[in-house]
């Protein structure tokens, strides 16, 4: 499997500082965007700590092949081992942000969203807390792999509000879950198998406030280079006023092997075909 990833974070036109943080790690296949909040640079601190803690703890657990008894908090049986590493690293990072916010006066009230993508040859994991998002483009369709944790989107889910009303609601930025405001936090986590030519976009709400899902779909579909795609997103946001910080990561996959595993008899036929092809090549140079 080949991974090509690119990222850009832009302060925008209205804000003094950039409270977003992000990380990309092609060797682990781990991509993170965090959108911090809280004045006097506390938002920046919250998002940076979250990203660093998740990277560190996830790497540690992967390297040690940690088992269920080493997880932070109760393991989730609906998730794979790697899914539980992600869950544990989110719980741990939240606790660190929370404790810093409690301990130090200058960090009081700080918080952050987090969105994580893990790409491995056999498994894709998407996790989020807050309203930063992950999109997946697969087989000509754009799909969200994250759930917005806002009052508005919860009301949409319960059928109390339409998507259109939600988009213009004055409350669309009020979060119901985030890092830093509570000792524990439960993310939404999704797992799926990778498919060839999958494309992923991770972003803070600086992008989704100004660019619609349809536009994200069209741009992701038409750009063949992840760096150009990030640039295009940022240019569009800047053209539209960029009232917030914007961070985007694009991850493009290629040469993903179909992992059928093959039945024994299927493998036998497969070997037979390859063998015959070799013989034919020898016979007809």
């Amino acid at each position, binding site marked *: 499997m080949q991974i090509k990833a690119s990222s850009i974070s832009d302060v925008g036109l209205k804000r003094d500082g950039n409270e977003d943080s992000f990380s990309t790690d092609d060797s682990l296949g781990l991509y993170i965007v965090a959108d911090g909040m809280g004045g006097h640079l506390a938002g920046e601190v919250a998002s940076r700590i979250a990203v660093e803690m998740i990277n560190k703890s996830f790497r540690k657990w992967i390297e040690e092949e940690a088992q269920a008894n080493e997880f932070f908090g109760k393991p989730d049986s609906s998730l794979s081992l790697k899914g539980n590493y992600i869950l544990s690293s989110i719980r741990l990072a939240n606790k660190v942000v929370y404790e810093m916010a409690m301990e130090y006066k200058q960090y009081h009230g700080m918080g952050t969203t987090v969105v994580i993508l893990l790409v491995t040859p056999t498994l894709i994991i998407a996790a989020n807390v807050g309203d930063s998002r992950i999109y997946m483009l697969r087989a000509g369709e754009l799909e969200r792999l994250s759930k917005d944790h806002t009052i508005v989107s919860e009301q949409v889910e319960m059928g109390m509000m339409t998507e259109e009303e939600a988009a213009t609601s004055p409350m669309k930025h009020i979060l119901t879950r985030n890092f830093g405001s509570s000792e524990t936090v439960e993310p939404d986590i999704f797992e799926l198998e990778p498919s060839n030519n999958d494309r992923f976009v991770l972003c803070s709400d600086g992008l989704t406030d100004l660019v619609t899902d349809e536009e994200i779909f069209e741009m992701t579909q038409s750009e063949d280079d992840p760096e150009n795609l990030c640039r295009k997103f940022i240019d569009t946001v800047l053209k539209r006023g960029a*009232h917030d910080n914007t961070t985007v990561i694009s991850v493009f996959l290629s040469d993903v092997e179909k992992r059928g*595993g093959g039945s024994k008899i299927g493998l036998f036929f497969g070997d037979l075909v390859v063998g015959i092809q070799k013989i034919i090549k020898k016979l007809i140079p």
Partner: protein
Amino acid sequence: MARLILMFNKQVIKEYPLLKESVTIGRNEDNTITINNLAVSGYHARIDIAGPDFILTDLQSTNGSFVNDKKVVSHKLSHGDNVMIGKHVILFVGVEKGKAAADRKKMDMDKTMMLDTAKQKELLAKQQKSPQAAQAVEKIGVMEAIDGSDIGEIELTKKLIKIGKAHSSEIKLSGLFMPATVATISRRPSGYIISPTGGKVKVNGEVVKDSVQLKDFDTIDVGSYRFQFYEKEVKNS
């Protein structure tokens, strides 16, 4: 300072200042504003402070919340708004213009905010446990074998379900040509999505090329097996 005035039959019962914390209104005693009337739900509505604004949210109450005789789910309160909860009226008294800016640092609603007071958290938790919220039941997908095999009903509790010959498969199938993993079903924000990974999978008789979102009572053919998919309600514990 903004405040709320609780009234019944045009008589003022009590005044509540709107300070830093959110205010909840309901029949239960742990609300900020308790209204002991059967027309009022246990946790009926909430008023959140968002920057300079006050936002009323109906907590899925049985009888609804009304602002100036209009039913609302959420509403940004303006000075003089009449909030009707059951037969009680709560009058919202905002801050006079000009003074508002001085009172509170102007915050634009574009800025992401979080609900972070301890009380808020408690109430959100309670709201999830309250009987009204229980109406929003969780659903779980089920694959039921309808080919006479002894597989029976399999609940799709995992986020990623593998179907195939491999021992680690959540739905284990046998057969001479059955691959280790013939397909996967993943539970995503949009629902349950089946994707073939190395074999032929049919949904309602059509071969699946990339992936398909499963709907209630879809039939799924894999090898000689046939399943029916449906979502059943599970009680939130």
